[in-house]
C-alpha cells in the first residue's frame, strides 16, 4: 500500500535514502540540497538507519569518500548543488571511469558565478560529459521514484556507472506536495542488496585507479562508452519493473499530447508542469501543441526523441542553462543532433530560459508556442538562439 504524505522534494529523496539504508552517506551542506543530509542526520541520530554518516569537509571529499566506500563494496550516496558539484567535477570523472555505481542527489542550482542560489540546470549540465547517468524530475514524486530506481539502473552488470538523480532547486526541492511513498519493505525488496563482484574488502586483493597507459586506456574508455549505451536498456527494464511493482510509469521521456502535435517543446524538469497547463489551454483553442519532458539526459535517448519529434512542424528546445558556445544550450545541441538524420526534420529553435531562477509562467510558455506557430506557418525560423524573460524587452524575439 502506498502512503500519501505531504513532503518537500528534498524530504522525499531523504526518505528514499532512509528506506534504502545505504552503507555510507558523505555529507556536506550546500543550498538548496542541504536538507537532504540534514534529514538523513536525524535518521542516523534516531537509529532509523545504520549507515556510516561521514561529515566531510568539502564536496571534493564527499565524492572521494563515496569512491572509497563504493570500491570497498557498499552503496555510497551524497547530495549536492551548484558549486558543490563543480568542486566534485574531477572526482565525478574518476567515479565513472572506476565504474562505481554511486548515487548522487543533485538539487539543481545555478552554477556560480555570479553567485546565485536559485534553480537552473547549469550545474549538472556542466557534468554531462563526466560519464554519469542523469535522471531529471518534474516534481517531488518523480524525484522520489527516480531515486528508488537509481541503484538498480546504475548497478546493472553491463552498466556499472554512477547516477545523478536531479530535481529543480527550491521549485521541487522545497515545495511541499502530496507524494505517494511506498512501504519500507516494498522499497527494500524492489531495490535489493548490493552484491558487487569485486571489492577492496572481500575475496582476494583488488587494485583500483591505475596509471592507465596509452596501451590500455582507450579500451577502458570505450568500455565506459559501451556501458553508457547499455544503460538505455537497463533504464527501460528497471522502469518497467517499477511500474509493475508500484504502478507509476516511466521511460526516457514523457510525451505529452504529442500524437498529433504540430508544435512542441522539449524541456527538462519542473517547467513541464507549467508547460502542460499551457498545452491544455492551447488545445482548448484548437492549437495542436505537444510537449516532451525529458527524464533521461544521460544516456541521451537520441533515436527515441527524434522519432517522437519526426511528425512535428516546429520545435522549441527549452534550455534551462546557458551553453556559452555562441549558438545555444546543451539540450538544444543534442536534440538538434538527434533529429539530423530524420527524413523530414522539424524546424527548431533554442529558447534559453529560467537562468539563475528567472521565473517562467504559463504566459511565457504560450509565447513560445505562438512563435512556433508562426514558424510553422511561414516556414521562416528567424533567430534560432533566443533568451526568454530578460529585463530589457528589446532583447525579446518572441
Amino acid at each position: 500500500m502506498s502512503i500519501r504524505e505531504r513532503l518537500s522534494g528534498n524530504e522525499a529523496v531523504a526518505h528514499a535514502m532512509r528506506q534504502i539504508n545505504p552503507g555510507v552517506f558523505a555529507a556536506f551542506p550546500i543550498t538548496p540540497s542541504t536538507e537532504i543530509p540534514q534529514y538523513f542526520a536525524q535518521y542516523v541520530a534516531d537509529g532509523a538507519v545504520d549507515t556510516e554518516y561521514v561529515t566531510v569537509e568539502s564536496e571534493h571529499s564527499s565524492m572521494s569518500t563515496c569512491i572509497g566506500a563504493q570500491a570497498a563494496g557498499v552503496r555510497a550516496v551524497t547530495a549536492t548543488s551548484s558549486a558543490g558539484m563543480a568542486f566534485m567535477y574531477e572526482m565525478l570523472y574518476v567515479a565513472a571511469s572506476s565504474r562505481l555505481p554511486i548515487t548522487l542527489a543533485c538539487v539543481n542550482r545555478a552554477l556560480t558565478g555570479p553567485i546565485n542560489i536559485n534553480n537552473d540546470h547549469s550545474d549538472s549540465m556542466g557534468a554531462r560529459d563526466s560519464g554519469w547517468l542523469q535522471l531529471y524530475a518534474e516534481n517531488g514524486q518523480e524525484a522520489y521514484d527516480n531515486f528508488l530506481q537509481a541503484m538498480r539502473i546504475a548497478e546493472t552488470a553491463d552498466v556499472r556507472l554512477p547516477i545523478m538523480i536531479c530535481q529543480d532547486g527550491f521549485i521541487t526541492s522545497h515545495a511541499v506536495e502530496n507524494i505517494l511513498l511506498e512501504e519500507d519493505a516494498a522499497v527494500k525488496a524492489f531495490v535489493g542488496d548490493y552484491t558487487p563482484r569485486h571489492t577492496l574488502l572481500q575475496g582476494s586483493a583488488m587494485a583500483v585507479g591505475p596509471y592507465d597507459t596509452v596501451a590500455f586506456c582507450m579500451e577502458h574508455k570505450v568500455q565506459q562508452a559501451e556501458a553508457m549505451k547499455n544503460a538505455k536498456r537497463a533504464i527501460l527494464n528497471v522502469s518497467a519493473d517499477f511500474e509493475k511493482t508500484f504502478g507509476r510509469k516511466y521511460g526516457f521521456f514523457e510525451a505529452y499530447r504529442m500524437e498529433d502535435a504540430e508544435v512542441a517543446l522539449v524541456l527538462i524538469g519542473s517547467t513541464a508542469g507549467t508547460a502542460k497547463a499551457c498545452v491544455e489551454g492551447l488545445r482548448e483553442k484548437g492549437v495542436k501543441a505537444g510537449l516532451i519532458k525529458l527524464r533521461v539526459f544521460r544516456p541521451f535517448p537520441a533515436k527515441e526523441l527524434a522519432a517522437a519529434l519526426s511528425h512535428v512542424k516546429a520545435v522549441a528546445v527549452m534550455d534551462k542553462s546557458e551553453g556559452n558556445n555562441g549558438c545555444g544550450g546543451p539540450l538544444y545541441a543534442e536534440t538538434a543532433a538527434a533529429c539530423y538524420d530524420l527524413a523530414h526534420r522539424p524546424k527548431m529553435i533554442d529558447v534559453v530560459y529560467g537562468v539563475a531562477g528567472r521565473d517562467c509562467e504559463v504566459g511565457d510558455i504560450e509565447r513560445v508556442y505562438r512563435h512556433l506557430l508562426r514558424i510553422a506557418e511561414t516556414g521562416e525560423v528567424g533567430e534560432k538562439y533566443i533568451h526568454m524573460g530578460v529585463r530589457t524587452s528589446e532583447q525579446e524575439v518572441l
Partner: protein
Amino acid sequence: MAYSHKTELSKPERFVGGHRLCAGCGAGIVCRAMTRALDEGDKAVITNATGCLEVSSFLYPYTSWEDSYIHSAFENAGATCGGVEAAYKVLKKRGQIDDSYKFLAIGGDGGTYDIGFQSLSGAMERGHDMVYFCYDNEAYMNTGIQRSSSTPQFANATTSPIGTASTGKPQRKKDMTAIMAAHGIPYVAQTTFLGNFKDLHEKAHRAIYTPGPAFVNVMAPCPRGWQYPAELLPELCRLAVETCVFPLFEVIEGQWHLSYEPKKKLPVEDYMRLQGRFKHCFEPGNEWTLEAAQKDVDARWEQLLARCI
C-alpha cells in the same frame, strides 16, 4: 618483543619488486617498511595520492601491492581512505565481513602538505581509524622537482630556481608534523631510514595499532631532486637526524617525546654539502645562506626540545 631486523625482513613482502621507482628513491622504502609493520594475518587497504609512487607502482595491468589498493586523485587520499574505512565499519556492523583490516594512506609532500592538506585534515578530525604516511621528499618530484611547502629554504627547485637574483626557495619548510599534532589525534610521529629501521618500524607499528587516526612523516630522499648519488641515501638520512634538520620524535596522546638526541649536533652544512640542490649555498658570497639555514634549524630544534617531556 624486541625488534629484530632479521625477523622483520623474513616476513613476506607486501610491496614487491617490478615497480618503476628510481634507484635510490625513498618512497619504495617507506612502502616496504609500513606494510612490514602490519601484523601477519591482518589485511590492509592502501590508499595512494597521485604522485611518483602511484604512477610507478600501479601501471595497468601490473601492481606492486599485495594488499588491496586504491588511487583516485592527487588531493584526496585522506577522504578516499576515510570512505574505505567507513565502508569497513558498516560491513562489520552488519556482520558482513570477518577479516581484520587496517587502513593506510600514503602520499608525497605535495599530496600531503599542499594540495591534499584539506582532505587529510578533515579525515584526521573526523577520527577515521587510519594511518596517513607522508613520504616527504621535499618537492613535486613526479612533475619534475617543483617546490612545495615542504621544500627547505635555499633549495634549488624548478619553480624556485637559483639565478643572479635568487638563492633558491625563499620560504622556510612548513612544519607539517606539528600541524598534524595540533589536530589532537592519538598518534603523530616523524622518522626516516636509519640503521636497522627500528625507529621507522616501531613508529609505523604503533601508528597502525593505535585506534583512531595517526600521521607519520617519513623523510624519504629523492636522488633526482636532491641531486645526490643513490648510494648516499642512508648517509643523507643519518645526517638529517644528526644535524637536527629532521629530528625523530613522537606525539602520543598530545605528549611530545624525543626519540633520539644527537650526542654532538653536527652543523647543517654537513647535510647540505652532499646535495646538489644546495650547491650554490657553498659559493663565495652565499655564506649567509648557510648561516640562515643553521639558525633556522637551531630555532626549530630548541622549540622541539621545549615541547618534549
